[in-house]
């Protein structure tokens, strides 16, 4: 296990400096393998997630000479998710390594996950020798062909002299503009050959901004004009708020103009959930007042979000009376789903900095009528008030999320999987800080949580990290429990176990006449599974046991698994059926399974 001392600051300006290994900044002759690590070290990388194999073995052989920690995963998909979780938690570039053929193809789901959520990762794969490329050699696969549509860019390197330049360019591409995954495929002979290595000389050309960026003053003034005149504005805060580190500017905008803020799933934490102007999550499982506010608004200010179908409902009826301002770094997103009135195409933080001087504080004697109207509409909704819930002996996932939020004071990094628990977490765990919710939004990759949390914990060893996964998704990558054990990570794992593939079961209940085809799920005893890995575990069946179990997990050093056995046929409400308008949601029913405060 790599235990080398780590330098937490990832810098791109190491050129000319000599680092721990003494290999950066001096023009020396190195093998391609050594160059891989020397270049990574120069880029500030101190940990990689990977799995060795034939075509990447020369690189693994050279690893011992470099101060880089290697985390051995149990499946390469886990390596890609760990790099992804590492990147999302830290804001730095995550790195994963795999061999050719099946090693490389196993990365693909993780790469696509990072692509859809714009997460900067660099994947390094071994490849068969350049002499046999294209001959169906053992473990040969055209991984650059396979990953072409799910990477921002990818490279094949067949010569040692190209290794440093290519990896450095990969880092630049991964983090510039709209971030994303980059794959570098390096042939075995390129790893074995020797060439001159000069880290500084291998610096890539400066990033060329997308030529269609457009934030000129006319658009800024037009946007400011719309904001000043709006009576019912809503800010839509997306992942870009985190990516661009624009939280402070966004907050200034909201507070100065008294504009309520709705968040996308990936935008949660970008604006403090406890802030009076925070509405919470919008979209398919957003609360009714959030979606109603969007539908009734006269101005939407979309900040670093892309009007995904999960947040708009059917486009024909989306916010019909609203003008739209779209602030977005990717020009290809403008007018893609929703036609906008003003587009500020560029970095969100810079755009907001340019916009704010044109906005005088709104003269507010008390709150605006619009904010009051939204506030009032909250009361009309059949919100399940967790705090006032009677303890009927049933354990609901909502209880678990609420109590977890309380016990962690909302400060933990929560890494969720995909499904019902993911939505419950988003509804009931209030994130006040950016990068404290890590989840697969765009691709919706089950099995994401555990490996991504391992990456997040390694990126932020001093933070409390919780995995929140369903019983289905957890089993997709449960093998990574062994990785957590081997790395001795202080990781808390909450399995929300309802014995179903819950979200699919919910769709079957609502739209397929309760035909629960292939959704009931027999799982192993997760506590015993944990114990088999040398990991402590505990099963929780009642509300009263939740907080003590969470406290025990928090106190325990090392991984800890809690198997929460929750109500089997609970559903996530509200819900907008696919193809419906944003305000046409299925509300919480008077289902005896679902308690409300009125049930007392």
């Amino acid at each position: 296990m790599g235990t080398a001392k780590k330098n937490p600051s990832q810098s791109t300006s190491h050129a000319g400096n000599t680092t721990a290994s003494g290999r950066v900044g001096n023009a020396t002759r190195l093998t391609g393998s050594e160059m891989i690590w020397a270049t990574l070290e120069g880029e500030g990388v101190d940990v990689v997630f990977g799995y060795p194999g034939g075509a990447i073995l020369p690189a693994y052989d050279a690893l011992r000479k470099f101060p880089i920690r290697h985390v051995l995963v149990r499946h390469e998909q886990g390596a890609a998710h760990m790099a992804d979780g590492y990147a999302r938690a830290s804001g730095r570039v995550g790195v994963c390594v795999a061999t050719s053929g099946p090693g490389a193809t196993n990365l693909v789901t993780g790469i696509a996950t990072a692509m859809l959520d714009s997460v900067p990762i660099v994947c390094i794969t071994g490849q068969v020798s350049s002499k046999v490329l294209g001959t169906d050699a053992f473990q040969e696969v055209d991984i650059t062909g396979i990953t072409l549509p799910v990477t921002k860019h990818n490279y094949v390197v067949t010569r040692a002299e190209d290794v440093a330049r290519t990896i450095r360019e990969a880092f630049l591409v991964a983090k510039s503009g709209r971030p994303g995954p980059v794959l570098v495929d390096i042939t075995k002979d390129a790893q074995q050959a020797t060439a001159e290595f000069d880290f500084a000389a291998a610096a890539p050309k400066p990033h060329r901004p997308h030529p269609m960026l457009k934030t000129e003053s006319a658009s800024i003034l037009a946007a400011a004009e719309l904001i000043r005149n709006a009576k019912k504005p809503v800010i839509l805060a997306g992942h870009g708020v985190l990516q661009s580190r624009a939280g402070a500017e966004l907050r200034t905008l909201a507070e100065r103009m008294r504009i309520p803020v709705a968040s996308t799933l990936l935008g949660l934490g970008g604006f403090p959930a406890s802030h009076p102007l925070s509405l919470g999550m919008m979209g398919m499982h957003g609360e009714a007042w959030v979606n109603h506010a969007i539908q009734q608004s006269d101005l939407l200010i979309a900040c670093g979000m892309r009007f995904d179908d999960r947040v708009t409902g059917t486009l024909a009826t989306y916010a019909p009376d609203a003008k739209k301002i779209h602030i977005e770094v990717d020009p290809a997103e403008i007018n893609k789903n929703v036609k906008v009135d003003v587009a500020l195409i560029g970095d969100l933080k810079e755009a907001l900095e340019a916009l704010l001087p044109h906005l005088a504080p709104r003269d507010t004697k008390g709150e605006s009528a619009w904010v009051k109207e939204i506030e009032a509409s909250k009361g009309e909704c059949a919100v399940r008030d967790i705090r006032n819930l009677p303890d009927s002996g049933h354990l609901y996932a909502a209880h678990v999320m609420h109590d977890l939020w309380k016990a962690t004071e909302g400060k933990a990094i929560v890494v969720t999987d995909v499904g019902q628990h993911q939505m419950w977490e988003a509804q009931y765990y209030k994130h006040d800080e950016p990068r404290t919710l890590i989840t697969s939004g765009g691709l919706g990759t089950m099995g994401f949580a555990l490996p991504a949390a391992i990456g997040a914990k390694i990126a932020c060893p001093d933070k409390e990290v919780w995995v929140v996964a369903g019983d289905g998704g957890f089993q997709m990558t449960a093998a990574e429990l062994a990785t957590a054990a081997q790395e001795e990570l202080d990781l808390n794992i909450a399995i929300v176990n309802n014995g179903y593939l819950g979200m699919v079961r919910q769709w079957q209940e609502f739209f397929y006449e309760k035909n629960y085809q292939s959704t009931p799920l027999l799982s192993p005893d997760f506590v015993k599974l944990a114990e088999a890995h040398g990991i402590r575990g505990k099963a929780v069946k009642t509300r009263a046991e939740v907080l003590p179990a969470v406290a025990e997990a928090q106190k325990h050093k090392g991984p800890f698994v809690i198997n929460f056995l929750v109500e089997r046929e609970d559903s996530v409400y509200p819900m907008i059926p696919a193809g419906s308008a944003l305000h046409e949601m299925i509300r919480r029913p008077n289902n005896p399974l679902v308690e409300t405060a009125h049930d007392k």
Partner: protein
Amino acid sequence: MLHTFVALVEDKPGVLTRVASLFRRLNINIVSLTVGHSERVGVSRMTIVCDASPTAGHRIAASLYKLENVLEVDDVGQLSHVARELALIKVAATPKTRSMVFELVEVFRARIVDLAPESMMIEITGVESKIEGLIQVLNENGDRILEISRTGRMVMRRGQHTSRVLEAMRVPGIELPEDKIVDDGAAPSDVLMAEETGL
């Protein structure tokens, strides 16, 4: 609606796949695609004609620019430009029927580039409609067409526009009136342009 894009791309392996894959992913059919060297070393010029909705132009151009190997994109659209296609057409012709083909070739300002005992090869350059006109007349005359090879459309904007100017123009905004750039062809800028592009 047909869109025509000129893309200047790095001359490297796999770049054509990346461009073609983008259109595939957007579910847009490529009508024609021509690739060849440009005026710059290491830079290829593509003319891409595709069938897409009238509003798709912006997104296609923006998506093309997201490809790392794409240097410049020009949505030629309605702008003043010259479009040409080259076709080679082989028709069955015996000594008895040749003269009719010669006449047609004359009218269409095409050329005979090969003559064999039982066939002739015609080379024709022009806009698509002209080439299609010749093919139609050949068919109607009963001259059996044996083979057709067409290059697809290639375009170049008229006037002073060069790729370098395009780049400068993109920065302030994308809705600049294009005619201005076409018309302001004073002599000094001619010289400047030639220097800038290294011609």
